[in-house]
């Protein structure tokens, strides 16, 4: 038997209260001291004995009632065993194994447990950065074994947030329509993967979900983390006091080597050595050599990039009033240099009526522009951006709001929902082959991305003037301006991402090379792929088409761009979810899935048996109710005195 909320058991100390009250009452009924019994007459003794008996029964009832209530709140669960289910009649199983970085120490156990769980028609999938089906539903044991053999862990992280809903969707796709699938999730149930809101663990469950932990105690682990700025931290979780060797190298050259004494489950912060400025990005590697007991080796190396990127100058053309505003915004933001000539790699075009021809030529020859299209360019817009058709001249009937935004796009990653942007007038555009990144509440495109010759344009369907929109005054405008220009000038590339996270490639013409210089994408893939997921930690090199062809000396800011991919920080903390939290998840999962026969087996020691947890709280509450009724009857019932009995008899 176990308790879901064992902390409530401390309330058993409250049993002392009725005991104390009864003692006090008993003391209050201690004999009254009188001068003499000479003038007193004794009354029959049986009534006193009856009173004593009643007193003791009442005390027992009250203590029992309180104990039952406390136990009910502690939610005891009886771990019972069901008879072995008939495999042929059992629903198909989807066994999902957590393959995040924290599962590396438990891979063998997970494989063994998954093998035991794969009975009858079963499918095997892995849950890491994304869900991957290794083997669809099949009853073939050989295919099961082959799929289990292919199980490997990744360096990516896994969050349990909305995972049950995603698993249910996966189960729907694997099984026949309407077929109930039992989902068995094998994981270490790492605490750092648990979401802040419990509801996200149970929302969207349509199939029974059984949780199968492979770990009961947290293992010791050493890690090195980059804490931002110029510092690294060597941390131990569940570790004893130890000396840890640290080495910092740049492009293979050792810059610093040290030995740090780390307290039990403590950390030591180390400042990186000053690195001279270079024309190119520099790859740094921080490596620690911890003591022998270290559960996770992948987080003993931290890859860093000393970025030397500089922002491109921006050409600002068009309405002079708006030009001043945008120049000020550029200075206030990334301190970009603003020019008026279209010689820079990227431009901001503010309804440039007189420069439409020049802007078209600029784009076709490879320039990139953020274009605010107002009334002045309305007539020449189809010529300027052939992929966009102007459906109607102008919509100024009513104020519009931004309804949808693609926040996965680098230009919109930080602006959020753009809720405070009001659009008083806009050009009604129809995207032909252009990509719509944001739409207004009437469905009209608000922000589009299109290719023009060798160039690219981000087009806003309104002028930046206040009579068109309050975008310039909105809270997210500066962020949008920075991100859009970074995106267009290819400055957007991050330098440090977590393994398993996706990277949006610049304009689809890019090459990714791993640390060994091997291409991660071939040319065909690089043309079509907009995003790529990097699973393995290490340094990667990013090359765009322009970079490859142009001479490095022709552009002062060009050169190799490196990307550091590391084990997600949360994966390094191997602390586990508490048993009570896991039990709560189990119960909620089964109740939400309306499982007719549930099996919340936490360890399939008997693969042919099913376990289920019988909640005892309702029974205890029922018993407590009976106790309450008995106590009420006994406490309020009068004990007839002899005189009263005589009166009744007469």
């Amino acid at each position: 038997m176990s308790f879901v909320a064992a902390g409530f058991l401390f309330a058993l100390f409250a049993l002392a209260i009725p005991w104390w009250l009864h003692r006090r009452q008993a003391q209050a009924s201690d004999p009254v001291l009188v001068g003499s019994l000479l003038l007193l007459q004794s009354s029959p003794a049986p009534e006193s004995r009856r009173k004593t008996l009643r007193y003791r029964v009442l005390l027992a009832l009250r203590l029992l009632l309180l104990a039952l209530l406390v136990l009910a709140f502690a939610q005891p669960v009886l771990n019972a065993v069901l008879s072995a289910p008939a495999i042929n009649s059992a629903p198909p199983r989807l066994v999902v194994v957590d393959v995040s970085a924290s599962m590396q120490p438990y891979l063998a156990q997970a494989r063994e447990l998954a093998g035991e769980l794969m009975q009858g028609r079963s499918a095997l999938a892995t849950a890491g950065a994304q869900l991957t089906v290794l083997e669809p539903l099949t009853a073939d044991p050989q295919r099961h074994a082959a799929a289990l053999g292919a199980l490997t862990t990744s360096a990516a992280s896994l969050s349990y947030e909305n995972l049950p809903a995603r698993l249910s969707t996966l189960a729907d796709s694997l099984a026949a329509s309407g077929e109930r699938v039992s989902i068995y999730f094998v994981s270490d149930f790492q605490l750092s993967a648990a979401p802040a809101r419990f509801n996200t663990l149970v929302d969207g469950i349509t199939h029974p979900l059984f949780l199968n932990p492979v770990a009961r105690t947290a293992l010791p682990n050493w890690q090195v983390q980059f804490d931002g700025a110029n510092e690294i931290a060597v941390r131990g979780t569940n570790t004893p006091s130890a000396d840890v060797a640290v080495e910092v190298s740049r492009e293979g050259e050792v810059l610093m080597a040290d030995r740090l004494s780390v307290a039990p489950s403590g950390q030591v912060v180390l400042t990186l050595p000053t690195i001279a400025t270079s024309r190119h990005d520099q790859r740094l590697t921080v490596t620690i050599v911890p003591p022998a007991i270290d559960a996770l080796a992948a987080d003993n190396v931290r890859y860093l990039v000393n970025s030397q990127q500089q922002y491109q100058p921006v050409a600002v053309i068009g309405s002079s009033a708006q030009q001043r505003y945008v120049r000020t915004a550029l200075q206030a933001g990334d301190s970009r240099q603003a020019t008026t000539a279209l010689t820079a790699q990227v431009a901001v075009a503010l309804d440039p009526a007189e420069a439409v021809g020049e802007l078209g030529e600029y784009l076709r020859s490879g320039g990139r522009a953020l274009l605010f299209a107002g009334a002045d360019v309305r007539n020449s817009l189809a010529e300027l951006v052939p992929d966009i058709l102007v459906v109607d001249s102008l919509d100024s009937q009513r104020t519009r709001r931004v309804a949808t935004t693609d926040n996965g796009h680098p230009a919109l990653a930080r602006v959020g929902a753009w809720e405070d942007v009001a659009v008083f007038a806009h050009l009604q555009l129809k995207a032909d082959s252009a990509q719509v990144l944001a739409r207004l509440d009437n469905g009209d495109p608000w922000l589009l991305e299109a290719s023009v010759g060798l160039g690219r344009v981000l087009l806003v369907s309104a002028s930046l003037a206040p009579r068109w929109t309050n975008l310039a005054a909105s809270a997210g405008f500066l962020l949008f301006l920075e991100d859009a220009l970074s995106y267009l000038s290819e400055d957007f590339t991050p330098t440090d991402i977590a393994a398993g996270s996706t990277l949006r490639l610049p304009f689809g013409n890019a090459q990714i090379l791993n640390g060994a210089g091997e291409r991660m994408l071939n040319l065909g893939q690089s043309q079509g792929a907009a995003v790529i997921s990097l699973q393995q930690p290490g340094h990667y090199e990013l090359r765009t088409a322009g970079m490859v062809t142009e001479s490095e000396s022709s552009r002062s800011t060009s050169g190799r761009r490196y990307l550091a991919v590391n084990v997600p920080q949360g994966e390094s903390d191997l602390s586990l979810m508490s048993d009570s939290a896991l039990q709560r998840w189990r119960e909620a999962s089964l109740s939400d899935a309306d499982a007719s026969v549930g099996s919340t087996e936490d360890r399939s020691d008997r693969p042919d048996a099913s376990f289920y947890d019988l909640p005892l709280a309702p029974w205890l509450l029922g018993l407590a109710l009976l106790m309450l009724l008995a106590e009420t009857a006994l406490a309020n019932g009068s004990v007839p005195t002899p005189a009263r009995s005589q009166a009744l008899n007469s």
Partner: protein
Amino acid sequence: MKPQRSARERLLTPDVLAGLRNLDLVARTAVEGSLIGLHRSAKFGFSQEFAEYRAYAPGDDPRYIDWNVFARTDKTFVKRFYGDTNTQLLVMLDVSASMGVGGNTAGAVDKLSYARFAAAAMLHLASRQHDRAGLLLFADEIVDFQPPRPGMRNVSQLYHRLEAAEARGQTQWASVFETLAPRISGRALVVLISDFYVEPEDLAAGLKKLGVRGHDLLVMHLLAPEDWKPEAGSGRLVKDAETGRTMAVDPADFQGAYQTRLRDHIDQTRRQVLGCGGHYLQMDTDQPLNQTLQRYLNFRARHP
């Protein structure tokens, strides 16, 4: 509703006297407070200490006419003296465990404390009148005995003995009287203070042993509010303070039959005391001490 007490009475309530701590001070406070406003004749007696002259009135003893004054003024005056009866006073105080009962009611003290105050006041009065004063404390045996002696110093010693008295033991009336009677030389005023939880016939047998020796007997029957209403708690068990024996009783009995039996007991005790030639006074521990002393003084006025 309780009657309003005068300021003097409020000063002499048992709880106020209990706060004085010093028994000598208690006695002086009680006695002087009781004497204020009294007619002085109540205090005059056969002492050799001259007090005043008063015009002769019919009924006055002609032996006290001062003939020298008559010779000078041709008027008859009677010489008056402060009372000095030259009497022995022996206070017998029951200090058995039952005397420790009481003191739970507002304004009251336990019976032993009240008795201690009353005894101290009587001893003080005796010393003022140059009487010899003695003290006997008894329970299952004689706890302390000081034969009557004259002087304030003696009274001070008696105060100390009174203060040291503790309520314990069970009263053995027969043995106490048997032991005491031959130890009092000469006639004495014997003041017996107790709650008298004894069969009245047994008490009478003891009193007679004193009465036959010519002693004047004053029996002060002390009752606390708890004696009238012992149901202070909600329980049904009562415990004898002296024997420790417990007994289950019907709470309803306290309200009716018990009080009737107590009144009968008091009445029978009084009859037995009077039958032995003694005098009977009932004292309640929630009453001001001066009322008790008043009654004692009245008794002394009638029995100089």
